[in-house]
């Protein structure tokens, strides 16, 4: 088997909570609490979970926009966890990000041309004519016209702006794109345009995606494999088909059953979870999900289950499968 493009081992991010007069650390928010996964070349790994589960923090740590508290990140076999800042900047040529909010992630005072040129300048394309040519090419690739180059972000609709965000990420020919809720702010008819574009680009340029989203339908559509996160942990990870057809973890089962389905005839049995997600500053002992789990046993409150392969390629962190 070939080496995965990205490999993450026991990645953690604990944010300190400061309090008191001297700003001492009084606690920690365990945003990401030990996740491990890999992404193969050319595939899409989806990360789903509800707000505060740590999926965006995980994505940011891969690019080291946030420094991990613990754990290792390997990119093409190379440990990038402790690369110095200038070398890391060079690495980011290979890994780019697309953000959720197409309104907030584009500088309103720059023209599209300037926005798309910037990564090229940063990554050392010195020839101005060459950059202009590349900008035209990028606009064409994402389905915009070259005359759009002179316009400002406010002159575009949400869907077009997200196309600009994608073009910016593509500018330096990256291998990996981390897309953090790239279609959440868009209407359904526009959402499907952008998803199709992302799939076309993947095929054409052999891109690898880490696709972070909360919409389970979107994630199934775009992902080859899917990881489900809850309170900073991956609770289940498998091929997308398997995960949706045969979810193992009680949280995944509840999550999938909670999604309202646009169909009036076939109403699946719904598992309604009680209460809210516990605070990541004070996560429950044992299994993070045991406080809301309909199948919780005594061991669940005491021992935290580890992510284990329960079927080929299907991982779950649950005591039910031990």
């Amino acid at each position, binding site marked *: 088997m070939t080496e995965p493009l990205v490999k993450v081992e026991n990645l953690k991010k604990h944010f300190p909570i400061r309090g008191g007069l001297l700003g001492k650390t009084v606690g920690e928010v365990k945003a990401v609490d030990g996740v491990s996964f890999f992404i193969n070349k050319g595939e899409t790994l989806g990360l789903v979970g509800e707000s505060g589960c740590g999926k965006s923090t995980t994505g940011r740590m891969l690019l080291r926009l946030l420094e991990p508290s613990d754990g290792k990140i390997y990119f093409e076999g190379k440990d990038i966890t402790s690369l110095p800042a200038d070398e890391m900047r060079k690495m980011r040529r290979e890994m780019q990000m697309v953000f959720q909010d197409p309104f907030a992630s584009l500088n309103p005072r720059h023209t599209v041309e300037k926005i798309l040129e910037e990564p090229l300048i940063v990554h050392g394309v010195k020839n101005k004519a060459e950059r202009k040519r590349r900008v035209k090419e990028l606009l064409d690739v994402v389905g915009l016209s070259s005359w759009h180059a002179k316009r400002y972000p406010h002159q575009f*609709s949400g869907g077009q702006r997200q196309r600009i965000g994608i073009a910016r990420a593509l500018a330096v020919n990256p291998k990996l794109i981390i897309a953090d809720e790239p279609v959440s702010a868009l209407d*359904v008819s526009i959402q499907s345009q952008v998803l199709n574009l992302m799939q076309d680009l993947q095929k054409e340029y052999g891109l690898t995606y880490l696709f972070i989203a909360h919409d389970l339908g979107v994630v199934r559509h775009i992902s080859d494999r899917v990881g489900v996160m809850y309170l900073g942990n991956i609770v289940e990870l498998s091929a997308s088909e398997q995960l949706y057809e045969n979810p193992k973890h009680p949280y995944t089962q509840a999550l999938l059953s*909670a999604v309202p389905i646009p169909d009036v005839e076939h109403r699946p049995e719904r598992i309604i979870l009680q209460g809210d997600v516990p605070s990541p500053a004070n996560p429950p002992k044992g299994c993070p999900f045991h406080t809301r789990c309909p199948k919780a046993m005594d061991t669940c409150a005491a021992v935290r289950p580890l992510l284990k392969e329960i079927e080929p390629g299907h991982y779950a962190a649950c005591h039910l499968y031990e």
Partner: protein
Amino acid sequence: MSSPIIEVKGLQTSFLTEDGQIPVVNNIDFDIKPGEVLGIVGESGCGKSVTSLSIMGLIPTATGKVEGEILFKGENLANATEARMRQIRGNDIAMIFQEPMTSLNPVFTIGEQLIESLRIHRKWNKKTAMARAVEMLKLVGLPRAEELVKEYPHQLSGGMRQRVMIAMAMICEPKLLIADEPTTALDVTIQAQILELMKKLNQETDTAIMMITHDLGVVAEMCERVLVMYAGKVVEEGDVKTIFQNPKHPYTIGLIQSVPDMRTKVDRLYSIPGNVPKPGSLKLGCQFAPRCAHAMDRCISESPGLSSFDNGQQVRCWLYDDSERRKQA
């Protein structure tokens, strides 16, 4: 059959802009019967929220203009005075908004905010009103209601805040509840809890619900009848089963197909090309024509009317023009 609780006839809401008076809601008609759940779906800018604000009399009079009839128990709310609207709002018609954080006042306790409408509309004293508030919080499934009334909104999670909003809206037993994207800001597991609660309240109290949403899943789950809006117009109307199983308008068909289905995987999603037109930019013809795969010459020059079918379905599209259908039959 019982008479409708609210009847909207020829509602037109327009706003004054640099380009003149631009209609955002353009001549729409619908009614809601007691206890019914009506869904209004459409994408951003289709006018669904403006429709609900028009009913509530919350369109700013300085720039906005509401024309047509909004008949609530025979009274036209479109002409009602502000004083009269204040009697109706929160009492006969209540509303839940999308953002439970911004729609609660952060400097008042949950209890103070809950009893406000009882104190104003029913003139109840503080003690009885507070007892009722506690009762309402229990009804919407909130634990430790007695303590909760003394707490502030920031002490509650998003799902709990939305339950408080629902309790507040339902406290005066309104005839109509307008829910504008009530679960959009919530996570799916919390959304499932809130939808379940709204269904339960609807069944127990006979309050009609006007459910405004962009999520077709929520519509299928909650509603009996659906209006599909596009660019300020109702393009299709029918009972929920018909809309999902036999949609007729090309926009409704495209919208349903655009949603990635969690249960099956397709290689490529259907997508509607282009963007929603800017309000007021298309004066003639069908608003959807520039994005429609079936557009004919007539669609660009003439605006289609509503064609009705035997099952109550109504479609605003030249493909289903009555004269055309008669020819086919």
